[in-house]
């Protein structure tokens, strides 16, 4: 898969981003704004599933009303993320944290739109606590692995 990552890094778009500190900074800021929307809204739903969140509204209503914001946050991240990736694709390819992040992200997205969604909309649900803990572990795992990409440089 290395040739694909090399090709990605040498596309004109990737090279433009790579050589502009301002563009990289802007993309990272946009990525972080997406993250606050995504993690913030998921945190609100998961805290409610754990019985620690907003208790004046049913969990199912909180989940339903916040869903759009979660999806917008995810969309912002899925646009800005690959643009940051392509500017340093070869380094990411060699960084284990990147692959851990991608694996966790795939699991987190699949989990969120299937089991998490079903349980949150049906809450109160007997699996609410387990689902909330799994959801938080997966999403914060994605975020931590993302930060780790910048910290752990490939050998």
């Amino acid at each position, binding site marked *: 898969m290395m040739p694909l990552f090399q090709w990605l890094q040498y596309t004109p778009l990737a090279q433009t981003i790579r050589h502009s*500190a301002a563009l990289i*900074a802007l993309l*990272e*800021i946009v990525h*972080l*704004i997406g993250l*606050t929307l995504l993690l913030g809204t998921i945190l609100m739903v998961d805290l409610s599933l754990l019985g620690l969140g907003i208790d004046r509204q049913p969990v199912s209503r909180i989940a339903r009303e916040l869903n759009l914001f979660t999806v917008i946050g995810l969309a912002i991240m899925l646009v800005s993320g690959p643009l940051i990736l392509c500017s340093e694709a070869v380094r990411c390819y060699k960084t284990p944290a990147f692959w851990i992040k991608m694996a966790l992200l795939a699991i987190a997205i699949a989990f969120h739109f299937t089991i998490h969604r079903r349980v949150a909309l049906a809450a109160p649900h007997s699996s609410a606590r387990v689902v909330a803990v799994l959801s938080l572990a997966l999403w914060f795992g994605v975020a931590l692995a993302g930060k780790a990409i910048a910290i752990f440089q490939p050998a």
Partner: protein
Amino acid sequence: MYHSPAFRIKMLLLALAGVNAVVFHRTVYRDAANWDPAAGVPGRARLAGLLSLVFWIAIIAAGRAIAYAPGYDLG
């Protein structure tokens, strides 16, 4: 960190976000139970919401910018 302009801007923005929240809670929010649903959310509350969004997004941007300041290292 002390000499980083981005850091100083971030701290200033944090203070402004705090002032905005305190002013909102001490003024227009006190009367929230009596807001007329037909009239929508009062203008001053909308302004507080808009300012809060602007401040917090700017705090994210300034925070990220700290790492781009010349001569920045983890020390």
